[in-house]
């Protein structure tokens, strides 16, 4: 079944024709060519595909593109306010060496931003580790990811994002 969808991705209106079975992540990667969002598993566990839909983190591999019809989607490509101005979470990941191969990174960053906001910019190590349950990283051992998120929380608050 072919369906027309329209949504806002990173502030820009987009539309396309998809099959009912097209996943949101496929729509982003294959239809829109936005390959920043990754696919790391087929059982909805790894979190490489996390994006924000109407401000909430979701696994874009476990949502149909048609379900996002009319929604406001933010992906890793939409975080930096300009090519030279990264989001504080992106900055914190870089400052703390919270990424190695970079494959889990888009999902990690998207989950991390959602986490910081939900916890009202107040986090401790145990909470961060627990909140990362849905994001797997095989490279960093999480140590620096946790550090980065803890560092980003006050930075996000200060930047008002």
């Amino acid at each position, binding site marked *: 079944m072919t369906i027309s969808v329209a949504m806002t991705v990173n502030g820009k209106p987009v539309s396309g024709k998809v099959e009912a079975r097209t996943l949101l992540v496929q729509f982003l990667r294959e239809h829109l060519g936005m390959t920043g969002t990754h696919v790391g598993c087929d059982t909805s566990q*790894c979190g490489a595909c996390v994006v924000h839909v109407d401000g909430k983190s979701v696994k874009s591999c476990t949502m149909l593109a048609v379900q996002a019809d009319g929604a406001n989607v933010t992906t890793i490509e939409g975080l930096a306010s300009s090519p030279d101005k990264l989001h504080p979470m992106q900055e914190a990941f870089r400052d703390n060496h919270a990424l190695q191969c*970079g494959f889990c*990174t*888009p999902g990690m960053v998207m989950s991390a931003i959602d986490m910081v906001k939900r916890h009202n910019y107040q986090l401790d190590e145990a909470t961060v580790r627990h909140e990362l349950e849905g994001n797997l990283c*095989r490279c960093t051992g999480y140590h620096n990811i946790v550090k980065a998120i803890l560092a980003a929380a006050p930075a996000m608050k200060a930047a008002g994002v």
Partner: protein
Amino acid sequence: MTATGIGARVLRTEDKRFLTGTGRYVDDLALARATYAYFLRSPHAHAKIKSIDISAAEKMPGVVAVYTGKDVAESKVGGLICGWVVKDKHGEPHKAPPHPPMALDTVRYVGDTVAMVVANSPEEAKDAAEKIKVDYEVKPSIVDLAHALDKGAPQVHAEAPGNLVYDWEIGSKADVDAALAKAAHVTKIDIVNNRLIPNAMEPRAAAAEYDKGTGHYTLWSTSQNPHVLRLILSAFVLGIPEHKLRVIAPDVGGGFGSKIFCYADETLVCWAAAKVGRPIKWTAERSESFMTDCHGRDHVTHAELALDKDGKFLAFKVETIANMGAYLSTFSTAVPTYLYATLLAGQYTTPVIYANVKAALTNTAPVDAYRGAGRPEATFVIESIVSKAAQELKIDPAELRRKNFIPSTAFPYQTPVALQYDSGNYPPIIDEAMKIADYKGFAARRSEAKARGKLRGIGFSSYIEACGLAPSQVIGQLGGGVGQWESAQIKFNPTGNVQILTGAHSHGQSHETTFAQIVSDKLGVPLENIEVVHGDTATTPFGMGSYGSRSLAVGGSAIMKAADKIIAKGKKIAAHLMEASVNDVVFENGTFKVAGTDKSVPLAQTVFAAYVPHNYPLAELEPGMDENAFYDPANFVYPAGTQICEVEVDPDTGVVEIVNFTAVDDFGNIINPMIVEGQVHGGIVQGVGQALLEKAVYDSDTGQLLSGSFMDYAVPRADDVPSFKLGYKVTPCPHNPLGVKGCGEAGAIAAPAAVMNAVHDALAPLGVTHVPMPATPMNVWRTIHGA
């Protein structure tokens, strides 16, 4: 140290693209007119293929082509190779059964490739694959390693009777047996090194394109070593001349060894691209990765350590059966022999060592190198038995280790198992680790935990590893099929910026930053003017790729050599420009100077002169500033360290929690401490994963992979591990120009023993001496209740 040079904590160059979603991994490629491949995999562990009917699949919408093993064989595609010939104890080469990229008449593990569908979309390819009818005659299978060599076990290949690939040994059995017979004390262990599934977060992927006009193939692959992949595909498998095949490994999302090898899927994608005349893309689903990526470890071992009455090690004997899986993967044979048994001296002066390794075929996915490859297995045997001996002899585990450490004055130290350790100083490492871990305070922490109903334990692991593969001639003598040098090219552009082209490949290790730091430091070029190019056989010099913690020690050394050549040439140009004698010219901070005068010429000016050679000694010197170097190391490098792990066990549930983890390493000189720490963290967590969580399980009756997804295979998550405390001691490597040793695998090599020793220590009051690895809650609970 400059702000961006050697030793500086420089933030990574590669981060920006990864953080903004602009990295380019294989699956991100958009190829015009692309088709998509889907592989039909064997659902059986062992079966004869009686017939395959593809007629219905061919008629499905969007299908471009369907291929079976017969098509592949008819095209004269060669088998996948094992590139390392191990000679058994009688000097006979290992049994090498054929490994067709697509099964011809027999499938030998769940996941073996049976057919390939090429279609206009991935979903259509999958839809069509469901219509392929395969008539299998299921045969008995063997997945249980401990019984793979038993008489009467199902045969995996006719070419390897009794499933035995080789029966190999090192050291003198007679000497070791004699020492064991008269020793004051002998400690024995029986351990299983659990089978692991690497699970780099980016699944393997391949894309290929054939240019009919030129006869050129381009293969994009998630490879750790594109040149080696090209060499294997050209020379052995596809027969495409090397100069007609370009292999590109763009951004690669982790490898940990699993992306070293030449796999069936990428081979077939490349082969079929010419047949269908359109580009083909394939990306593994995670469940395919679980089934078909090479797995790691999987040993069954018995070991005996002889000690004198004072706890001095007298002899060490190790007998191991190693699983090879259903086919021999690219470097599989070397892992449980030359990368394992040669490490069995550890950090100790044990005078005689004997190891016997039998490699067995089973109806499971191929097993090959996985982060540490052989060295984690060796470290686990040594460090488990040493801790057990300490417990039996009631000696402090740190004390027993110290008593047997190779003294710092003994380097270079020849071990009884072939290797000559170049440098090291072990006692200060363990001292530092004990200080950081507050070993003295442990007893108090243990009793405090007891009051809370928890059993607290502490465990040591003092590892040594040989990495930085390696002197080519040694590798050749041992049966390795390739050279093990590395290449580098430093290419200045006329405007003064630099490209470093390397044969190494970064899939997380940060070469783009570290390698640039070396050149920045050495040549005085600002970091932002340097770019590291890797991963494309068309642009980079032939190189061996990245694995075995070799990139910096070998690849970095090649860069140093190339930089030396740049300086040497620059000196000649500068001498000409300054009208001085070359012998009077010195190079400092990016500038050539005539000693004792105020004459100077910056490097950039010599570069410009080299490209615009108007005032230039053309008679003696070629124009251009572009230097190549190949570096073949004189020896392996020998990182060493001690990890101390502290755990708490909940005796009611069997849950093990890591409450403290310390690692002190000697990696020689450090180029970028931030990056090294990251490597250690990641390595430790993979080691912790092996110790507490991860295990590949095949059903012993059906041969099905029971741990075939993240639902059943537990990869460590953030809340499974703590933050780590790290420390360093430095003994520079004496034989490479940077004085560096490798750091990529150390964490994974040492951690399993550290964790398991801590678990054993925690449970010792209950009389427990052995918990099977991984120490999952159920395993711990069962052990406690069987104890």
